[in-house]
């Protein structure tokens, strides 16, 4: 049952991403990407990461994509007739490169099957203990980085 849902959501994510990267209209691409992120969030939940799933919806689909939409509308970029769409001449070499890389990834992934130990499950409590205990330094560093990003965005955005 859960495996079936996983494969369906994987198909939804891949198809939505494919539409997003071939879409000429930037706003439509963002909406397709939100669809893809929602299905990825449910995949995260199925893989045993409810907190990451919730943050995927809140931060990615909620904040980052809305930031994209905000910038697109503020700069008035939503005119697909003005945008230059890449032709077949640009898709072909990129598709060849992507096929080569994807083929090598598939070969490497499916080449050897190590005997994986069965993992123990854990809850949000263990997650929080690990995040603020072992990785406290990382939390501090990432908060400093967010502060620097704020200062940089303010500097770039001033008139």
């Amino acid at each position: 049952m859960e495996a079936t849902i996983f494969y369906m959501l994987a198909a939804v994510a891949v198809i939505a991403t494919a539409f997003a990267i071939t879409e000429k209209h930037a706003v439509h691409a963002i909406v397709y990407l939100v669809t893809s992120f929602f299905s990825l969030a449910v995949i995260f939940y199925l893989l045993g990461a409810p907190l990451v799933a919730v943050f995927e919806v809140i931060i990615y689909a909620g904040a980052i994509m809305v930031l994209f939409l905000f910038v697109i509308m503020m700069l008035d970029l939503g005119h697909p007739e003005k945008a230059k769409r890449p032709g077949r001449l640009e898709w072909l070499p990129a598709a060849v490169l992507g096929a080569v890389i994807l083929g090598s990834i598939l070969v490497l992934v499916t080449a050897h099957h190590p005997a994986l130990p069965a993992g123990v499950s854990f809850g949000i409590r263990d997650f929080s203990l690990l995040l603020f205990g072992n990785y406290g330094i990382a939390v501090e560093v990432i908060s400093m980085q967010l502060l620097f990003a704020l200062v940089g965005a303010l500097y770039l955005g001033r008139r």
Partner: protein
Amino acid sequence: MIVPLIHVLILAGILFIMGLLCVLVWRSNLIMILIGIEIMLNAAMLVFVGGAGQWGGADGQVFALIIMALTSAEVSLALALVVYLHRRRKTVNTDEFSDLKG
């Protein structure tokens, strides 16, 4: 683990390649380049979460959370840069920004 780890890795690989294709194909549009980077970072997060689900440690989820915070910092700066560039040249076409001093 509901599905084999290999299937998760294959899905993440397909998504990563799609992000890479987006960056390669739409290299003259700043917004689409940023969208491609988002797709690639999401694929990386999927690998971390899949590994955490396979081996049963929460470390992968912590790293996924850190990637998310990193992405939000990166996107805010990148979109501020897009606004800045658009203010200078009234376009987001990367071919227009070819001179060092302007």
